[in-house]
């Protein structure tokens, strides 16, 4: 009797099991929808009056969330550039939440992360790290202060101008892909004074990739672009982030005689974009530099002192975007007589138009033993009918501090 009760119970249970399965399926299918990944937002302001810095820092750190100002006195007081950079990095990190800290920090060995940067809008190519738009007001201020420490005054002004250009493009009907809040900051390796690490700051038309090796900074590969390339006004301020760069490159070629200009022309070559653009996460250095007989153009050491000064002035437009602690050594190496004996300036485009930045396809470059600068004029994307700049500054031997 007992057996049959169990059996009949079991026989009852089996269909019930099926029904339960159906009901659970109904239930979970309702919640099967998942929200798409939302950006990290934490409105909670990180604590801290303490800045996670070396012991000789006086109590400084960040003020509370109500007043948006930061006190960088402690970092300014440090004597070396690298110490200041590390101090400011730590001050920035101190404002972040735990999950923001995780997203902003990459491993030093991560070659893919190191080589992930781009000129495209961030909706096309994802950037590493933490988005400006996802930061608290305090974090954003500290981030900008960090950038101001990492770059020189000119560099910081270019940085602000590039972001403002994105807001300008958005206001000009470019859509929400463009915005000054779509810029990112990331650390690859932990910021330390006596070690190896990298900072990436980037977004549309911007890529700063500065590798610090025991305090020495290597600021390439670097990208800066500008649409519009002429000066523009947004939010009651006027910007022209690449006017200096563009004008200096043009001046360099305008300083040549007509036969020299002819000689420097890359005949038979058309440039719709630069030769060596983003590395796209490849993890390796690019290998497409012109070599051997393909290295054409006007040799800089063959130019007069005045003409060479114009070349140096153009180079400075990129290299002096970084503080002298970083740029002095680089300038010395790039513009030494030995370097100039192996440096060529060349241009391409519509020959009859000359070096005309308002003609699409106009291309200029400086090709040295280490130094590599390209500037190309492309058709406008948002602002139709006007060209815009794409520029890349690389170091053939010391990109990423040669630490890939």
């Amino acid at each position: 009797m007992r057996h049959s009760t169990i059996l009949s119970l079991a026989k009852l249970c089996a269909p019930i099991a099926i029904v339960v399965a159906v009901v659970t399926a109904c239930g979970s299918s309702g919640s099967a929808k998942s929200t798409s990944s939302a950006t990290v937002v934490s409105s909670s302001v990180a604590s801290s009056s303490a800045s996670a810095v070396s012991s000789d820092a006086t109590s400084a750190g960040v003020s509370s969330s109500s007043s948006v100002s930061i006190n960088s006195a402690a970092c300014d007081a440090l004597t070396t550039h690298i110490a200041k950079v590390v101090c400011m990095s730590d001050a920035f990190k101190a404002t972040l939440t735990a999950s923001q800290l995780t997203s902003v920090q990459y491993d030093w060995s991560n070659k893919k992360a190191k080589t992930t940067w781009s000129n495209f809008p961030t909706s096309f190519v994802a950037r590493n790290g933490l988005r400006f738009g996802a930061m608290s007001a305090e974090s954003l201020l500290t981030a900008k202060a960090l950038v101001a420490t990492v770059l020189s005054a000119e560099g910081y002004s270019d940085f602000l101008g590039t972001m403002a250009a994105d807001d300008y493009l958005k206001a000009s009907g470019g859509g929400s892909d463009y915005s000054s809040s779509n810029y990112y900051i990331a650390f690859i390796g932990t910021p330390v004074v006596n070690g190896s690490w990298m900072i990436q700051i980037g977004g549309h038309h911007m890529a700063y990739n500065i590798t610090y090796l025991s305090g020495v900074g290597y600021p390439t590969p670097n990208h800066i672009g500008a649409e519009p390339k002429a000066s523009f006004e947004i939010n009651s301020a006027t910007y022209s982030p690449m006017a200096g760069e563009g004008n200096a490159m043009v001046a360099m070629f305008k300083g040549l005689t007509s036969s020299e200009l002819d000689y420097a022309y890359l005949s038979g070559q058309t440039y719709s974009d630069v030769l060596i653009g983003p590395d796209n996460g490849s993890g390796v250095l690019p290998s497409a530099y012109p070599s051997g007989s393909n290295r054409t153009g006007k040799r800089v050491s063959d130019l007069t002192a005045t003409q060479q000064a114009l070349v140096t002035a153009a180079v400075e437009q990129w290299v002096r975007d970084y503080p002298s602690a970083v740029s002095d050594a680089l300038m010395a190496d790039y513009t030494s007589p030995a370097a100039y004996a192996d440096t060529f300036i060349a241009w391409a485009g519509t020959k009859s138009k000359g070096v005309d930045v308002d003609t699409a396809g106009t291309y200029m470059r400086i090709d040295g033993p280490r130094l590599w600068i390209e500037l190309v004029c492309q058709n406008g994307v948002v602002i139709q009918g006007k060209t815009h700049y794409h520029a890349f500054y690389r170091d053939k031997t010391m990109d990423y501090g040669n630490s890939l």
Partner: protein
Amino acid sequence: MKPLFSLLILLMSFMSTQVHAHAANQSTLLLDIGTDSVQAELQIPVDELFLALPDELKAQSLDALVQQKAELSSYIDAHLSATSSENNGKFAIKVRSLSVGLINQVSNLIVTMSLTPPQGASPRAFRLTDNVVLHRVVNHKTTVTIRRDFANAQFAEAPQLLGMIYYQNDTIVINQTKGSLWLGARAMIRMGMEHIADGLDHMLFMISLLIIAPMIRKRNPAGKLVWYPSSSVKEKCLNIIKVVSAFTLGHSMTLLISALKLISIPSQAIEVMVAVTILLAAVHAIRPLFEGRDWLVAGAFGCIHGMAFASALENIGFDLKTFVVALFSFNLGIELAQLLIVAVLVPWLILLARFSKYYDGLRVLIASFTALAALSWILERALGFRNWVNPLVEQLFSFSPYILLSFATLAILSVLQFKRNHRTHPCAKLM
């Protein structure tokens, strides 16, 4: 389902805020490695192409340009070459077609070509030099991929990146000598099996056929056709074999005909018809719709399903020998999967039909569920009316191992119960 989805995606992409001129200025070269030749497709962004063309071609509009097959062919010819790695002989390159198409929202010139190796050389090992556009636009890059290579189980769904062609690097070495027909056949068998495993609609159809396999039709006193359990095992097995064989024959025939592109019916229509066959099969499993000649109906339905299967083979554009092997292997995979379903399901169905008084209820429940699913598919595929039934069906199928287990459990319990109830009747025969 699929064409509707792709139409939706296409529409959405057109509605996105901005077509970025930033984007893709790269060419793509897709290689299909065959037994006697290589078929290549070169996709060139039109903007880049126009920067590189000789002046007389440059002056044309795009539409006019595409008509100039001879001139464009000779331009391509001048900048593309292939040399056999075996005997250093040159491949013969012939442009087959030119067209313009949108790829990733960018207008591209699409050039299809055949590359034939020199006498006695294999098409699987060669050096390819390509400076189309690159000869002039020095920043131009070309992505080279192997799109199809049957002998290496490489199918069009996921092209394999071979490398890049760019400034000062315009030659790429292709070496596909490893691989065999068996490798490809094996992959196609797996593809056939996966096609059934992923095809919920087909599975439900099969289940609808199988749940009536242990039954026969009789007219009830009211004259209506109803299902009765059949007591003959032999008859049941024979029935199943006849129905499954007819279905197999039907779908094999139309799979072949469709894959050979001898008939061409819009895939949306096929998908709707498949859903209709499922509906009919489900209703028939509740209350018989017709008497006799099951195999004929199964064969007819098989024909419809075969056309749906062929859509999975759409992209298999190989030469004849490979095609035959591919088709045969794919069909074999389908059969193996179906046999597996039969083997896994039928014993329990037979036991349940014989020993469980719940079988009728179960049959009606499953058939009703199938009918509901089929209805929702018809609505979705014919009218694009997406509803909540499809996700429910998919969710339920994720529980299928458990459902099968409960079937098996129920069957065993029914047998035990039956044995128990009939223990006191020594004359009662089991089976």
